């Protein structure tokens, strides 16, 4: 835990006016809405966070909480090549190393993609082109941003494959994705995303499609490579165990918004939002009696078209009736600082949350 407590990723509220960000990555009040026939889908509805080089941010939440939409938004992939579809409506600010991406020239953002910011996707089999060799795809990623000949790029690809732990990289470089195992494919995907030494690496559920035994290897690899390259990393996952391993800070998303964020050990050991409690309660743990059942979060994720009024979590929250005047169903709670760099959006009083956590939740975990 000593490593976590040295956390330097600042988590703070964005300022009202918009001066250029001094953080490496700063997202301010990001909103990503998709117009559909059924209405406006508010996938991300006001999200802010900051991240510094060398630090890891874990974004946690259920399916449909807006995690992936956020990452694709940072990469600018909601606007690139959306032929004839109704355009996503994106507002807010995304500052990467002093440049605001949403208002920047799209071709400039394209040049940043793959070089300054890179992404690892959930399913490496579908994310790699089936008709090109692993090597060709890495070479292409490198040569897009570096003016080098094919031989040099190929040497670089082999070097990267070696670096991510693929045996016989000089032979495997000519293999096709279908000739790799799942774990090897994800390693190749990581090699491809890191080939240009990006300063920001976004890993969108990088281990979800993999065997449990391979998951830990991939997470170790991401951690080692981060140390080596000094990149900022965003890990997106629904699995708290994954971020517990890696993240300096954790941001818990629900219904397109942040409900709790803070240093990883705070969110893990002193969580202050009922949804985070639910996530912790539903996580299987080996150090607990196996007779105890996991406690699922009741109900299902909210509709992003008709987000429940008040606190989006209120229909599923066991404590929704504690605050007075039905406030949980009428007023949307603001994200407020409840401790050192620890924020939560909840109508319960700090005392109520303290009591519920120590008396009801913590003993069962």
């Amino acid at each position, binding site marked *: 835990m000593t490593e976590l407590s040295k956390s330097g990723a600042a988590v703070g509220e964005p300022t009202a006016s918009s001066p250029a960000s001094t953080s490496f990555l700063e997202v301010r009040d990001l909103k990503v809405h998709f117009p559909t026939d059924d209405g406006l889908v508010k996938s991300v509805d006001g999200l802010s966070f900051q991240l510094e080089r060398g630090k890891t941010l874990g974004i946690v939440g259920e399916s449909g909480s807006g995690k992936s939409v956020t990452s694709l938004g940072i990469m600018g*992939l909601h606007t690139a090549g959306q032929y004839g579809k109704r355009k996503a409506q994106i507002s807010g600010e995304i500052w990467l190393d002093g440049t605001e991406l949403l208002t920047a020239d799209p071709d400039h953002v394209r040049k940043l993609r793959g070089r300054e910011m890179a992404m690892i996707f959930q399913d490496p089999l*579908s994310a790699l082109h089936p008709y090109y060799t692993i090597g060709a795809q890495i070479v292409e990623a490198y040569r897009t941003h570096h003016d080098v000949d094919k031989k040099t790029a190929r040497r670089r690809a082999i070097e990267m494959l070696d670096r991510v732990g693929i045996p016989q990289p000089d032979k495997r470089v000519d293999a096709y994705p279908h000739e790799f195992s799942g774990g090897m494919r994800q390693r190749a995907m990581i090699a491809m995303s890191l080939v240009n030494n990006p300063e920001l690496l976004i890993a969108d559920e990088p281990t979800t499609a993999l065997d449990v035994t391979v998951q830990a290897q991939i997470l170790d690899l991401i951690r080692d490579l981060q140390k080596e390259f000094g990149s900022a990393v965003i890990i997106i996952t629904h699995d708290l165990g994954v971020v517990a391993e890696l993240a300096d800070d954790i941001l818990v998303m629900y219904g397109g918004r942040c409900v709790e964020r803070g240093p990883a050990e705070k969110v893990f050991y002193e969580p202050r939002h009922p949804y985070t409690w639910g996530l912790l309660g539903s996580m299987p743990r080996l150090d607990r009696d196996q007779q105890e059942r996991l406690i699922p979060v009741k109900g299902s994720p909210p509709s992003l078209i008709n987000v429940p009024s008040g606190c989006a979590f209120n229909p599923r929250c066991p404590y929704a009736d504690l605050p007075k005047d039905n406030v949980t169903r009428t007023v949307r709670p603001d994200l407020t600082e409840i401790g050192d760099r620890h924020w939560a959006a909840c109508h319960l009083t700090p005392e109520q949350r303290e009591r519920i956590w120590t008396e009801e939740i913590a003993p069962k975990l």
Partner: protein
Amino acid sequence: MLAYLIRRLFAAAVMLAVIILVVFSIFFLVPKWAGVDIATSFVGKQADPAAVNAVREKLGLSDPIYSQVWEFFKGIFAGRTYAAGGDVTRCAAPCFGYSFRSEQAVWPVLTDRFPVTLALALGAAVLWLVFGVAAGVLSALKRGSLWDRSAMVVALGGVSLPIYFTGLLSLAIFSYGLKWIDAQYVPIGDSFTGWLGGMILPWITLAFLYAAMYARITRATMLEILGEDYIRTARAKGLREQTVIGKHAMRSTMTPILTMLGMDLGALIGGAILTETTFSLPGLGQKVLDSIKTQDLPFILGVTLITSVAVLIANLVVDILYAVIDPRVRLA
């Protein structure tokens, strides 16, 4: 890759033998079922029975069936000899026999007509590939736009309108109305420009139908491919949009187009009956129509076999190209 190639070639050879057998069975069985005696039909209705018998003996029609199959098979690869008494005719390989109507040897007539059909099919294929695929890609990239909607309406027209309608319409407008083109077929050896003039309307007419089908398939495939994860990966790498579309998406879109192209080209090389008839092109399609009308079995057999072989070869080429494009196919 080599193993795949050998397997495919072997399969093609087996298929060829099967095709020859099936084609022969048409020759042998159809007249039986239709109650027509081939020898009588050859000689004519008021024939002298001695002449009919002579023909029967010469064509080997009273031989046992396995020997007839063998003679037919052998004729194609080694040539055969027809003999009845002192009357001996040597038919060189590949021998498909002689017309029942004109006593012409079948094979020279077919080889004479084949280039016309081949030129028609290949020229049209180039046109429909270029315009059909381009229109399909554009439609996919501008989905829902005015261009997309109009292109798809035109394509629907192209698919639905029969060739003898669009063909006659183009003749009426460009040849008889505007008098831009003299739509007479001229052999390429006589006059190249005359040949071009004679081919241009058939090409366009035939290509219009196929371009319409290809545009629709291309559009649907491209839209599907654009939703693939690896296209998102390509963009995440920072590739230019023209590389994402032109390289990553197009390569995947090519597979179904290639499959269709193999089938269509193969079938057309065996004769584009409607187009050739509409424009009076002296190709295989026109000949097969004449032969069917006059029940000229040897010609029907010859054209059927050429068509089958063309489809076979086209599919073989497609299979090989398929393996070049999609590495996963090589394992299958």
